[in-house]
Structures are given as structure tokens and as C-alpha cells.
């Protein structure tokens, strides 16, 4: 089975999650080994996932914890 680039793009998410069948994974891997465009797309998608999983993206506002725990205290003691 020979895949073109568009087929490989459809598989990127499953490839990254490791949810492709072993046969499909082999075929995709063979394509990636010789296709620079697809391997760059794969790498960039993977990198974006690494960046978006980073906690620094959503910093807590200053005083967030203090306000939250103060409100909880109010509720618990009322």
C-alpha cells in the first residue's frame, strides 16, 4: 500500500497518539522516512502539543489562590 502526503496528514493525530494499527504505522513510517514535508508537519505538530501542554501557557492571576481559599473558608465556616 502506497500513501500520498494527504493520507499521511490524516493519520498524524493517530500516529502521535500511537493509535494506528501496526500495519498502518509501518506504511506511514516508510512515507515519513523519505518525505521531508510530512516529517516537518509531524514534528511541528508534535512540538505544538509539547508547548500547549506546558503549564506556563495559562498562568494563574495574581492572588487567585488567596481569593479562592478565602472564599472556601467563608463557606466552610458558615
Amino acid at each position, binding site marked *: 500500500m502506497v500513501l500520498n502526503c494527504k493520507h499521511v*496528514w490524516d493519520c498524524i493525530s493517530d500516529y502521535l497518539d500511537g493509535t494506528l494499527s501496526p500495519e498502518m504505522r509501518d506504511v506511514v513510517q516508510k512515507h515519513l522516512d523519505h518525505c521531508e514535508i510530512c516529517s*516537518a508537519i509531524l514534528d511541528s505538530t508534535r512540538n505544538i502539543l509539547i508547548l500547549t501542554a506546558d503549564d506556563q*501557557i495559562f498562568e494563574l492571576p495574581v492572588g*487567585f489562590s488567596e481569593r479562592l481559599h478565602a472564599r472556601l473558608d467563608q463557606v466552610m465556616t458558615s
Partner: protein
Amino acid sequence: MTLGPRNEAQIIVSILAGETQLYHELIRPYERSVYMMALSFVKNEADAEDVAQETFLKAFHHLASFRSEAKFSTWLVGIALNEARSRLRRAASVRMASIDNTSQEGGRIPPAILRDWREVPSEALERMEVQQMLQKAIISLPEKYREVFVLRDVEELNIAETAAALSISVGNVKVRLHRARVMLQKQLVPLLSTLNPKRRWIPWF
């Protein structure tokens, strides 16, 4: 750092037995993820903080209904999701705003094609502009893609947990997740590749 499921279960038992002050300790590791969840839905910091506070209050009041075979973090995320969605519904009914303008499920989104990409250095994240760029891109995804993406790739739930939290099928999670990831790749790669001038998007010479 989380407390580990066993410690958590013990703490929950103690809280229910009356040691309510332990609740502060129980939720501390989850403050950030509940806030992230809220912010990616309601899109502004003040509302997100409100949603996060309501989530923790609701979780406290309903702690007795928590079943220890579930993960406490997943249970909390579910409460945050409901809280954020009901706030959005209230806001939408006031504004009559359309939230989801690209609702077609079919069709293929082509990724951004690039010639010279290695990686975005993680130091880049220390830059405020990069954090904001990523945050904005996630927030601007259409709702049904954003919720799958946030649960799976930001909160790091697995596919089955994501499907359960959203009451959709595993197949639907995979399809929406794929589209969300490609949308982000398409939107972010051209922006991120301008960060390092040595790695040009298109060769100049």
C-alpha cells in the same frame, strides 16, 4: 505535585468526616488545571476565576457523591466543564451570539507546509508573546474542537476519559482532536517559525 490516589481517598474520607480544612490541601494541586479549563471556555480572566471558584465550591458541596473508582482530577474537570458550559449558555442567551461558526465535521484541513522546521525552543515559552500566542490560538478554536483539545492535550485526559467527560464517542474524540491539532498547527507554525530568524519559513536567497 499531586497527593496520589490513595492519599487523596483518605483525605476525602477525613473531609467527609468533618475535617473540612483538609479540603484546601486536597485541591491545591488542581487549581491551575481547573483555571486553564475555565479560561479556555469563557475566554476572559475574571469569568474564568469565577468559574474556577464555583467549581471548587460545588466539588466541596458534592464531595460525598465522588466515587473513589474515578480519578479526583477527572471528576473536578467534569464539574469545571459543566460550570463553564452553563455560563456560556447564559451569556449566549443574552447576546444571541454564535459561538461555533465552522461546524462542518467533514472535509480536510490542510496543515501548514514548511521546509525548515526543527523545534521551537522551550525557552520561547518564557516570552510573554509566545504564551499569549498559544493561549489565543487555543481559545479561538471552535467550541467543539476546543473542548476536546483542552481535555486531551492540555488537561491530558486519555481518549476514553475525554469521551466520557463530553458524552461523545471515542471516534468523535479522535476526529475532533485531529482537526483541532491540524488547525493549531496551521495557525501557529507560521507564527512560531518567525521567532527564530535563523530558521526561515521560506528561503530568501
